[in-house]
């Protein structure tokens, strides 16, 4: 197994045009298996940073490496491939495509990444069976698997989103304020579940939130307002 960090950012600068700089990060590294809590208030550039790590946005300067591959040197299509192969992303809420069933939502990354489909297919178990196992492991009734996601509670939807992020064992899970719509009991249970499952798959975790009280659940905490040298008004 590679010992390279799953994520490395060096001297990254980004702005939507040359006259502005929204992000300037000297260094950020996440080691394999590490869980990092990234705190930042609204408007601190969290979404922009996630866009850069995901390869949807391209920095003006600097280097971003995913599992040792500098994605800033890649074409847009190759960056999309890197995202599909190595990243699992969980959003704040409304994570799922409402016109797909639970199982179709969970297996969606495997439709875009043969690497993750191959990993999910290990030991002659189909992607769908792997997805059903994940759904069960995350405490959802697997008989729901073929139902549309519309009838699930927000907590259940977030667990489906975790299953989707974990399928095929990506190297890094990015969770962008996934607990903001949950009450405190469900929030703690959700974080514990996410941590347990990502350890099973040996995934690193970058958990983004403005809620400092959640930092205790993670190996390390990083403050984006300190990390980003550009001070937001």
């Amino acid at each position, binding site marked *: 197994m590679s010992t390279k960090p799953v994520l490395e950012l060096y001297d990254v600068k980004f702005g*939507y045009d040359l006259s502005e700089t929204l992000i300037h990060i000297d260094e950020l590294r996440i080691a394999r298996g590490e869980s990092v809590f990234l705190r930042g208030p609204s408007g601190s550039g969290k*979404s*922009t940073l*996630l*866009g850069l790590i*995901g390869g*949807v*946005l391209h920095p003006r300067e600097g280097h971003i490496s995913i599992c040792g591959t500098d994605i800033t040197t890649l074409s*847009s*299509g190759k960056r*999309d*491939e890197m*995202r*599909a*192969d190595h990243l699992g*992303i969980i*959003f*704040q*809420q*409304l*994570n*799922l*495509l*409402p*016109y*797909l069933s639970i199982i*179709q939502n969970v297996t*969606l*990354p495997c*439709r*875009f*990444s043969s690497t993750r489909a191959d990993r999910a297919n290990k030991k002659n178990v189909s992607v769908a069976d792997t997805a059903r196992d994940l759904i069960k492991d995350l405490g959802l009734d697997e008989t729901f698997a073929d139902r549309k996601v519309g009838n699930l509670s927000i907590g259940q939807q977030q667990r489906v989103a975790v299953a*989707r992020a974990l399928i095929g064992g990506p190297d890094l899970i*990015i969770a*962008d304020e996934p607990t903001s719509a949950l009450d405190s009991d469900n929030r703690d249970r959700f974080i514990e579940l996410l941590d347990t499952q990502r350890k099973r798959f040996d995934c690193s975790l970058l958990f983004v939130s403005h809620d400092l009280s959640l930092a205790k659940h993670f190996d390390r905490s990083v403050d984006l307002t300190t990390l980003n040298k550009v001070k937001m008004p």
Partner: protein
Amino acid sequence: MKTPIIIALAARSLWARRYTALLTILSIATAVLLFLAVENLRQGARASFERTISGTDLIVGARSSPVNLVLYSVFQIGDPTNNITFETYEDISARPDVAWTVPISLGDTHRGYRVVGTTPEYFDRYKYAGDRDITFENGRSFDDLFDTVLGSQVARELGYDMDTTLTLSHGLGGTSFVNHDKKPFSVVGILESTGTPVDRSVYISIAAVEAIHVGWKDGTPTPASRAVSQDRLRALDLQPESITALLVGAKSRIQTLRLQRDFNTYAQEPLQAVIPGVALSQLWGTVSIVERALAIVSGFVVAVGLIGVLTSILTTLNERRREMAILRSVGARGRTIVGLLVSEAALIAFTGAVLGVVLLYALLWALSPYLESRFSISTVSKLPGITDAYVVLALTFIAAMLGVIPALIALKRSVSDGLSTRI
């Protein structure tokens, strides 16, 4: 989702918005229905038009325009400018390069249907739709002076049958105040439907035309004319002085042009000879302006339908930014986003176009008896053909091309939105 991911996602996304998608599909279906209906009826009308007369090499009448001659001698529309003398008819018939001639004498009607005075040979020589003969559904050709043969539409619409007695009216207008009510005719034959003006004609012998006008002076009946009995008329020599036109068959087709030139330069009286096919093409060129206008209008309807597809996708783009962000987050490439929206446009257009074709042929199947009987359009196709396939494919392709516009907008937004669903 075994189908290719983009098509599967597009289909499911459309299904989730099925009510608005259905309206767009219906607008495309209506546009295609209208477009193909115009095209189909145009072809049917043209085919019916061109098959009106065949087997006749020349139509000869008094000098006028070729179109006018064809209109009154074949289509029973308009008035002849003049008659030609019976001597001319005999002279033409006697030519060694003429195989046959059939005289036509017009000037009377029956309840709005034109009466054609001719000889029994008319039913042997007149052909339509290539080489099809006029056949009798019932009865036979006229034998007695006061026998008449009816076209199928005349018999059907007026409810006439064999042995029905009818009287004729003088003049070619729809209404006449001068009737030949003392000279009734008996129906001895009813023709099969041909989809040509033959169906709308009443046939009597050329001698009968002369008979019902015996004793007339300056186009009006005299008291003496009314007194002449039918039996007495049967005993008379009723060779007409003039006829309206004649159909001519040449002994050899290659002589047709020379015959036409000879007749057009006929010294004894001014004649007009036309080749039916050429005159029909000229005539179609005149009336096809309407058909072209209809085609243009239906083309615009299709364009409006396609713009509807574009609008329906554009209006949903904003509310679908989250969907795009989710897709990007699970690894969808930029081309997947473009492909998704292009596929949606193509799917809407394809479904709408196929529905339009299905509706069209269902309608044609249901309406074809009416079209045939009412408008003599009997050659509209009853099954989809290659033209329909081309229209469906062309529309799908154009819609896909139009879909590139919202697709590029969505792609641009998906980059600026990044991986955020807080939109």
